[in-house]
């Protein structure tokens, strides 16, 4: 019997609940494989309970932590499943982090280098909410980061950052539209 072909699907977006729903839909049957979600390593959970006196992280620090978490997910979830010929849906993956970084004013070159160690997904999908929902992202990486990061000093600036992240994702989806499948 021939071995199944491994497939890596990325699903990116700002809304954690919508991401999970889209990831489940992309996977189809759970027997095909699994979903790799944000903060599998617990880095952000640890950050959430840190003493406020320790100071707030900047967007750059948050992205270094996101990349560390993604390295963990690749090592323990994504690569082993692919090696077994299974399907993995990574939700979120690289595009969410890059969009957040761009919205926070970081250079594209730095973000590209940061995620250089990450394999490309064979199928890239985006969950693009309407403007109003994008500004209300509370959970997941984008919601967490908008709430916690240094420099996001008001509700208005947090909402703007979340909306700008969604706008960058829309642009990424346009540039890298998934191939049309039969």
């Amino acid at each position, binding site marked *: 019997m021939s071995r199944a072909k491994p497939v890596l699907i990325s699903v990116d977006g700002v809304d954690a609940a919508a991401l999970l729903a889209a990831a489940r839909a992309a996977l189809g049957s759970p027997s095909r494989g699994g979903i790799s979600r944000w903060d599998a390593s617990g880095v952000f959970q640890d950050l959430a309970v840190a003493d406020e006196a320790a*100071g707030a992280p900047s967007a750059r620090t948050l992205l270094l932590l996101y990349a560390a978490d993604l390295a963990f997910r690749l090592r323990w979830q994504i690569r082993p499943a692919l090696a077994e010929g299974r399907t993995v849906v990574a939700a979120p993956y690289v595009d969410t982090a890059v969009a957040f970084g761009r919205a926070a004013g970081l250079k594209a070159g730095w973000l590209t280098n940061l995620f250089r160690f990450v394999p490309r997904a064979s199928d890239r999908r985006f969950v693009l909410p309407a403007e109003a929902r994008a500004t209300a992202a509370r959970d997941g990486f984008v919601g967490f980061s908008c709430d916690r990061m240094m420099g996001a000093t008001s509700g208005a600036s947090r909402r703007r950052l979340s909306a700008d992240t969604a706008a960058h994702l829309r642009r990424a989806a346009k540039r890298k539209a998934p191939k049309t499948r039969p």
Partner: protein
Amino acid sequence: MMPRPPSSLRIARRSARAHFTDPSRRRGLLVAFEGPDGSGKTTQRKLFKTWLKSEGYDVVTTKWNSSDLIKPIIKSRKTVRALSPEEFSLLHGADFRHRVEEVILPALWDGKLVIADRFLFTGLARDVARGLDLDWVLKLYEPLLWPDLVFYFAVSPITSGKRVTATRMPSYYEAGQDVTDVPDPVESYQRFIGRVIREYESLALIFNFITVDAEQSIGDQHRQIRQLFLEGQRRPWSEWNADAVAEWLALQGGRR
């Protein structure tokens, strides 16, 4: 950092340059102490700090892997030996960035002298010794903040190994057991520190470190450091640091 138009970053850069080149105020200085474990740099850092204070400097010290926010995250993962080289590198990069923003740049802005007991070169030497690409690791640390002086305490792998193992057993990651696969920590350390020192020696050439022969007596090294500091402290502010300072100023949202 919130989105800023290019003109705003240009203004922040100008503000950084004006602040750090203003002759009417004492400029903040950043001095880094680098070298392998057992090179005696912590002893020298303490002596140097005492001397600087006696000379009237306002001194702030920052150590490697010491951010209040990130250190506990790294520590818990080191304890269970759960870090790959990439995770090790990225988490230490996060720790460094947080200290740059919370400790180093605020102190430099206020005209203090910052002594860094290990700087980003520690990350470069260790990560490359773990098999990671130098270019990838260096870019993680952008926007770069260059010290005014980097003292590199040079010792042989044998001396480093002897000094470290004389008082304690090297820890799992210190001994590089995650990459050597050698079960004996002392043997692993000896192998790993050789690689780290090779990387340090390359970095010393590329980045123009001031090399201190750390096999000399403690007193001789200290006298040499004092003299080199007095010769080097009048260096002009490095324009390379404008991006790092401008980004930090943007994070302050007008509070500076």
